[in-house]
């Protein structure tokens, strides 16, 4: 659900390989499912059309393999989550049980949305991503303290320090921001003097 997320430091789980680049958020969740209420669960929409040929599941699609069932760590290629800002893409991953996505790069908006829902977007090099993809199926341990992914080998990952703290603490931004209420009020007054045209006249 949207709202406060629970923090975490170490996650161990099964990793699934999705060796495709440029998986945009339209792939992660097609637009036609986004009018559904979140309470109904978005996991069933995850990569809906890529996984299927018509109504039938494609046996050759990586996430349909038996080894990928119950996975909570997704390993994929560059530019994962580019495109539409739909946070529903993150809901689909989280509701399907994922806590970590590992890739060489992420769409900026997707990565921010992920962190706001406790989903770690872990950046690794192209070569490291390929090695991790090749290691699947595997059980991996992802540690936010040491910024490492440990399986047969240990792989460091990159993460913005602000996001790292947020994932560990499970910070809720609205509460955090509320503690700066006085600064916001003072700024708004200054802004109104400096740029009165910001406030539209009805």
């Amino acid at each position, binding site marked *: 659900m949207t709202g406060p997320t629970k923090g975490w430091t170490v996650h161990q789980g099964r990793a699934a390989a999705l060796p495709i680049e440029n998986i*945009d958020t339209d792939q992660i969740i097609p637009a036609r499912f986004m009018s559904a209420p979140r309470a109904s669960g978005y996991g069933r929409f995850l990569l809906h059309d890529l996984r299927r040929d018509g109504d039938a599941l494609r046996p050759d699609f990586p996430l349909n393999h038996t080894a990928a069932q119950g996975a909570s760590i997704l390993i994929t290629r560059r530019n994962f989550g580019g495109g539409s800002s739909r*946070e529903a893409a993150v809901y689909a991953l989280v509701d399907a049980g994922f806590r970590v996505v590992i890739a060489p790069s992420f769409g900026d908006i997707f990565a*921010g949305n992920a962190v706001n*829902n406790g989903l770690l977007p872990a950046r690794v090099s192209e070569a490291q991503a390929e090695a991790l993809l090749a290691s699947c199926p595997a059980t991996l341990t992802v540690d936010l303290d040491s910024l490492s992914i440990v399986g047969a080998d240990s792989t460091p990952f990159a993460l913005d320090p*602000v996001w790292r703290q947020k994932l560990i603490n499970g910070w809720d931004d609205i509460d955090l921001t509320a503690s*700066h209420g006085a600064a916001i009020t003072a700024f708004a007054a200054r802004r109104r003097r400096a740029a009165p045209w910001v406030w539209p006249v009805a």
Partner: protein
Amino acid sequence: MRALFDKLWDDHVILTRDDGAALLWVDRHYVHEGSHHGFRALAARGMTVAEPGLTVGVADHYVPTRGPVSDPDIARMVQTLQDNTATQGIRLFGLGHPGQGIVHVMGPEQGLTLPGMLVVCGDSHTATHGALGAYGFGIGATEVAHVLATQTIWQKKPARMRITFTGQAGSGVGAKDIALAWIARLGADGARGHAVEYAGDAVRALSVAGRLTLCNLSIEGGARTGMVAPDQVTFDWLRGRPFAPDDFDAACEQWAALASGPDAVFDREVTIDMADVAPIVTWGTSPEDALPITATIPDPARATDPAEAARIAQALDYMGLTAGRPLDSVAVDQVFIGSCTNARIEDLRAAAAVLAGRKARVPGMVSPGSALVKAQAEAEGLDRIFIDAGLEWVGAGCSMCVGMNGDLVAPGKRCASSTNRNFRGRQGPGARTHLMSPAMVAAAAVTGHLTDVRPLLEGRA
């Protein structure tokens, strides 16, 4: 000296934490039907909107373009926006409002977006507003709730990037081609983490509509935001808009000072010579898969990297294309002119200039970007040109760009489209999308295949 982006950033910083995260003031927050997750999160906390006067509602993603809504799910989305904005005292440009339209068309058109503003919306194409010299970026639902609750947003300052377009655009080359040219060069994530300022003579020469198209596509190259320094072109375009400031000249003086200083520093600079830019079409399933219309379809066998070869092969398979064939031999099933990228009056005029006195060989739809654009086009007789050519003239909304309202391309069908995303299934499950300028879409309509618009413009426009 500071760049345009530095000035916009500095003007909105309330405070900066030691870890570099800054709390920014939001001047304008646009909400649409898709913002329902954000409103629900706000309601769950029992909070109300902090600055309803700075929040603007608009129905666009789910609005019908052809008669009343029949699907109850779609009707509910439009109604929920109406209920949420009414409850919170937010001005709404809803279904049937004379100012309704696609948020990135109607906001600037109404003068609700102005230079110097920080603009957010739960939509990735919000960088569009940067065309006026604003700092616009798309946000997710959790952030929508945060902005509704506090009128602020936490951000880390993106790196500064300038893309300079030197020389002048040739005939038949417009803002869409300029945008696809840089995205093809740098990749769909080429500007990730960057705030892009578009500069150079070719950008200065663009109308505001062209600048809106250019900034709109920033996200397709991965940029966090895109912008053009406001100038006389901007001010002339904004003067007299419904929500333009009363003391307009004083505001213009302030806005003129936003331009990057001559020795402003950028973290990254890219220069593109307009002599290299021809009318462009996409062939694959990412906006980076873009080539001049005179080119041939890429051959995976010629890719140097096996992963790249596989990606090209998969894209061609989805798109139903054969490697090595000329792009202009590809037959299309239908055309679409519309979207926040290319549905302004200038876009419709460009398409009409090609279609006037000609017939479309394939069916298609023209959806103006706003109710005002629709009225203007009808006053100019453009609707007649489209209808006489055999195309459907429909209402304003996101329509077939994203298909949420039921305007879909059928599975396996190929659409020449003035939109922004050729992603798999974007226009409907199995739909095959080729992105191009509205003039190029019109050319494809006339011939029934991807076509260089330039010969069709000879003796015209």
